[in-house]
């Protein structure tokens, strides 16, 4: 369960050193767009050394490799593959590329005796990928889909705007597919790092469409993203009341009951339980609440 995914350039030692203090639920160490072709080797070396010295980082670790259509992607994996990595973020993902990456991961996991199954987060950033979303979401190892709106709008030859009307369709499609196959829907980054109000509006809109996390390209964006994807005190209080009232109703075998004049049935109770699960995950429930 993640609210925020922070991109950090793989060749930036200062940011690597501070990766654990920014407050990201997950960090995507980037070997692709943020690293120029002349810096790729040093970035791989740096990340390799960094992963080898890291213990209990307090956030999930992902690596965005270069596309598998170039030879760079395979070199990336061979250099940085490490037990500490939660998953690989695959740019320009297609069904075919994800299957290829999955086989590659089988090989490296076996060769390096990595016990856990490294997951894949495909970036949906081509028209073809949008078309294949339903299939991509079902593939083994795929734990989330990440919308890459900048490349997608470029592929579509349409203007990228702050209000994001042009990406409503892929946003909705990703949200539905992820919900259907119980994986995370990660929204595209908001690229104006100085516009806090714009970030807030964009995040709220993505959330309203069913996205359950957002990627960030600057650590200062995390505060807003984490806050907006965290249940509020009022929501938690309300959910606790619903669950408590449901328990009372069950004692007298009632499936539907009324709370403050509103009808409460199974879907409402399930929503409240999910919210409380999230609140518990982020340590927002006190001992009294748990009772």
């Amino acid at each position, binding site marked *: 369960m993640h609210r925020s995914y922070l991109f950090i350039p793989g060749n930036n030692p200062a940011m690597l*050193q*501070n990766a654990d*203090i*920014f*407050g990201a639920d997950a960090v995507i160490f980037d070997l692709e767009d943020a690293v120029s072709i002349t810096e790729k080797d040093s970035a791989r070396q740096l990340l390799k050394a960094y992963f080898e010295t890291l213990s209990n980082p307090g956030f999930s670790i992902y690596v965005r490799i270069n596309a598998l259509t170039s030879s760079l992607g395979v070199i990336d994996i061979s250099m940085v593959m490490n037990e500490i990595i939660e998953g690989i973020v695959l740019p320009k993902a297609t069904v075919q590329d994800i299957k290829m990456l999955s086989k590659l991961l089988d090989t490296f996991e076996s060769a390096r005796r990595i016990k856990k199954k490294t997951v894949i987060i495909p970036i949906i950033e081509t028209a073809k990928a949008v078309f294949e979303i339903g299939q991509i979401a079902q593939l083994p190892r795929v734990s989330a889909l990440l919308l890459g709106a900048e490349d997608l709008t470029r592929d579509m030859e349409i203007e990228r705007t702050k209000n994001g009307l042009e990406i409503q369709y892929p946003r909705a499609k990703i949200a539905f597919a992820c919900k259907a196959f119980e994986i995370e829907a990660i929204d595209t980054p908001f690229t104006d790092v100085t516009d806090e109000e714009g970030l807030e509006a964009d995040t709220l809109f993505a959330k309203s469409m069913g996205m359950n996390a957002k990627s960030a390209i*600057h*650590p*200062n964006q995390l*505060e807003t993203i984490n806050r907006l994807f965290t249940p509020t005190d009022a929501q938690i209080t309300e959910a606790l009341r619903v669950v408590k009232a449901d328990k009372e109703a069950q004692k007298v075998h009632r499936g539907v009951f009324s709370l403050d004049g509103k009808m409460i049935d199974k879907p409402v109770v399930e929503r409240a339980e999910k919210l409380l699960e999230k609140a518990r995950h982020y*340590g927002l429930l006190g001992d009294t609440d748990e009772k």
Partner: protein
Amino acid sequence: MKNNLGREIFEQSKPYIRSDAFEQEKRRLIAKKTTDESVVFLKSLSEAIDKAGLKDGMTISFHHHLRNGDLVINMVCDAIKKKNIRNITIAASSLFPNHSPLVEYIKDGTITGIVTNYINGPISKVIAEGYLKNPLIMDTHGGRARAIESGDLAIDVAFIATPAVDKDGNGTGKFGPSACGTLGYVIPDLLYAKKTVLVTDYLTDSIVEPELDYHYVDYVCTVEKIGDSEGIVSGTTKITRDPVGRKIARDTVKILESLDLIKEGFSMQTGAGGISLAVVEYVKRIMIQKEIKARFASGGITGQYVDMLEMGLVQNLYDVQCFDLKAARSYRENRHHIGISASKYGNPFEENIVVNDLDFVILGATEVDLDFNVNVTTDSLGTIIGGSGGHADTAHGAKVTIIVTNLLKARLPIIKEKVTCVTTPGEDIDIVVTERGIAINPKRTDLIEILSKTKLPIMPINELMNIAHNIAGIPKKLEINNRPVGYVRYRDGSVIDTLYSVK
């Protein structure tokens, strides 16, 4: 000879004992100098120097309200040099990089002593190289007021850059082409200097409510320009965008909330550093959200505080110096933006001073040690890069003193076993907030009890140091050059530490 903090100090100087030791002392006051004679208006600094009777070996004072835009110090020193007057002591409340022409006068013996609260720029370099004949004395803002009123810092002639002067000789910082706002630091100079010269580039008919009363003024000297008011903007008045700094600011605000310090009628002061400004921004958001109004904010005032005053979030601003032009404008226009003297701000012997009424203060540090002593005077190599200003005054006065600092700066651990120089004693520091943890002074058991119940990363200060060492390694010990070049004077007049030449 060592003081109570174990720091080597000059023989026969008054050793620092404790931060509240002054409570056992009586206030010493020299007679205020007033003049019944009319103020004499002069056309040149040369004439003013002659009339004031400036001679070899005298002490002249200046303020720093024009900060890096001040032209008066350089102009006066140029005129002194032309007259071949030597062995002058400069008592300036602060010295900035634009005062670099003084370097030559230090080297040639025109200037042989400096007493100040803050030095930033080339002057500190030549002092560190040993060119200043007499020891540099670094005071606090409140301590300077004490030193002047007690006669410990006897001023022969005060040259006061004054943005506007009226026909009677009253002065103000509110108007004129070089308007800089309040003139709080210069009030002790005005009251106690043997001769006072207002140096101005703007004469007006009458000033209502002047800060500088003509009864204390001997001469007014008009010059073409006293300074560039744009230069009063400090380089550190921008809110940090550094995510590490913001994390520190967020945790600081969580501390303030946990300690219930942001509540109706509270009072605060923050430095002008980027992290402190971010703290104010977060505090402001909470105040808006919870509809809380502060009683006052004090210190060097920035535009950020002006916004809060104008939004009705703060009842009064007590301003000893304006950090930017927005603050200078507000001081001119808003009656709730109140100028205060350095004495009223932080003189330990003055009654009801503003710093003693602070609920909390947020301050910076270049180093903090395991005894919570703070250095804001030198860098880790011993080079002077600042000075107390109001650091030690507010740290002693405020109910809760919080230091905000990166744990590592340019790969250097900021928490050290012993600081290179003690500016503010650890007994007055309550909490140190870094990006990787928060240390609370063990003597503040009340704060530990409350904050240990939160999810904040509270840890002993030596653990913070170990974290820094694990990341950056243990720094090689600085080889101190044992040739003293000056000393840091605590606000009560005792010597808290010695400044050494740099190898």
